[in-house]
């Protein structure tokens, strides 16, 4: 509030109105994506950890002589891409949304022209943008390490569907977590679940590597996403059971979120 200059005249004449839905969604998506990438921890989770896991798994497999159905880099890359999707759609989204509740961002946006559908679409847009970046970085590292993915319609369609349904499933579960717990509890739970699923959820390692436990973990969203990605990028085929499993988790997560989400 300047003291020296004379008060500038400002035109306050009312001219209300919301921007077109799509512009609102674009604004919201770019805002959320920028905030996600600005945050050091989230960037670590989104890109650095998956790359470390990829390099570590490939080098480790050479030493311990894991029984894999193909070359280590070809088996692990789809799983690491699945891990990246999980980190963004579940952990990052849950933590970000938990703190949006805590800081009253959701309340504030609740009186802006942005409808809830726009808020949700904006979040999805931000997730897709961050995932695109993750896929680009991880694929580049993997290709440099000699990754030779399957090609063809089955591979592309299978991977796209897996990412899409995996994002839907994990985002719905992440929002369920964020909408029912306090922000700090969400932070802890989202990271814990991520670590547990990374280690024991058949994301990076195929479900078959877990022995009889593999029959259980393949039904987890992590196992289904990892499996669908491997079927697509190793064998070039769609994995109907895994994709349906992901769709099922997406429905369960959405219903839970819609029933329990608290905006404040």
């Amino acid at each position: 509030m300047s003291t020296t200059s004379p008060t500038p005249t400002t035109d306050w004449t009312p001219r209300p109105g919301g921007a077109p839905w799509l512009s609102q969604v674009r604004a919201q998506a770019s805002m959320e994506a920028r905030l996600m990438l600005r945050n050091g921890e989230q960037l670590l989770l989104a890109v650095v950890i998956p790359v470390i896991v990829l390099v570590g798994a490939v080098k480790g497999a050479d030493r311990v002589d894991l029984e894999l159905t193909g070359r280590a880099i070809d088996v692990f890359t789809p799983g690491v891409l699945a891990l990246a999707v999980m980190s963004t759609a579940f952990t990052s989204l849950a933590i970000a949304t938990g703190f949006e509740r805590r800081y009253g961002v959701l309340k504030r946006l609740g009186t802006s022209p942005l409808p809830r559908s726009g808020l949700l679409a904006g979040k999805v847009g931000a997730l897709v943008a961050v995932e695109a970046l993750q896929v680009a970085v991880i694929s580049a590292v993997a290709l440099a390490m000699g990754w030779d993915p399957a090609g063809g319609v089955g591979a592309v369609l299978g991977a796209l569907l897996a990412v899409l349904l995996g994002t839907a499933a994990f985002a719905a579960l992440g929002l369920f977590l964020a909408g029912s717990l306090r922000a700090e509890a969400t932070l802890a739970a989202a990271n814990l679940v991520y670590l547990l699923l990374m280690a024991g959820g058949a994301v990076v390692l195929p479900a078959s590597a877990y022995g009889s436990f593999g029959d259980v973990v393949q039904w987890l969203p992590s196992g289904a996403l990892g499996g669908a990605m491997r079927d697509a990028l190793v064998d070039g085929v769609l994995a109907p059971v895994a994709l349906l499993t992901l769709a099922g988790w997406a429905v369960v997560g959405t219903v839970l979120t819609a029933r329990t989400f608290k905006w404040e």
Partner: protein
Amino acid sequence: MSDAAPAVAVDGLVMRYGDKVAVDELSLTVDRGTITAVLGPNGAGKTTTLETCEGYRRPQRGTVRVLGLDPVAQRKDLLPRIGVMLQGSGAWSGVRAMEMLRHVARLHAHPMDVDLLAERLGLGECGRTPYRRLSGGQQQRLGLAMALVGRPEIVFVDEPTAGMDPQSRRTTWELLGELRDAGVTVVLTTHYMDEAERLADRIHIIDHGRLIASGSPVQLTRGGTVATIRLVVSRPFPPGAPDSLRAALGEAIEVTLLDEVSLLVTGPADATTLAKVSGWCEAQGVLPESLTLGQRNLEDVFLELTGRELQP
């Protein structure tokens, strides 16, 4: 017709939190193009009433209409037309001040020029500062900017100057006055009497969730001819003191017992009244400790209506 409707019409609103009644059969109207203050102590039900108008809460009983619309059922139509300044916060902790303002601007069809608005609100210097590092006053001013950037027809501002330094407070008052002059309806809650008295065209005083008085500041304080005499005595008044003083002073004058050693005389505070008060003291055998003349202000009004101080 929604265009003939008042800016805000609250009718018989009841809101409860568990056993506690926050708003109790409240009815009030806000005319378009006015600055209307909802004045009351903390916990009077101001914020709850405002949040019902903003569509955050569904009325438990009664009706609320804003620009003729139901804030819950017609939320989509109403939201673009209103601006809301919340009490505190409402931004991502890592977002920069101007980035946040630009974001809210992008959600609107005809936003104000954000740089001009920021300059007006003194946000120029902290434009790149993350929200969590802004001072309380800067956060308040950013909150006000976010409420105004969409060029709303009506703005709801909840305790707009809480935490502001005196200069920012004055600038904010000036700005709210300009909004009114441009045809924007301003609804503000406050527990500062001076804010309401200086700024508002109309004041609704609420306490314990009820409307206890409404009017322009002048109506409420009944103009310049009315003044007050505060009488403080050294020992408690004898029983029936207010009545006997009232009888001595005549009908045009009100006597309010404030506590056992002080009372407030409201009416034309001329020499006659003063002489009568001191004559009465002599007749009652009470010794005046102080006899203060003053303009009646909103604080006195509030005190008379509720028997309590407005600000703790």
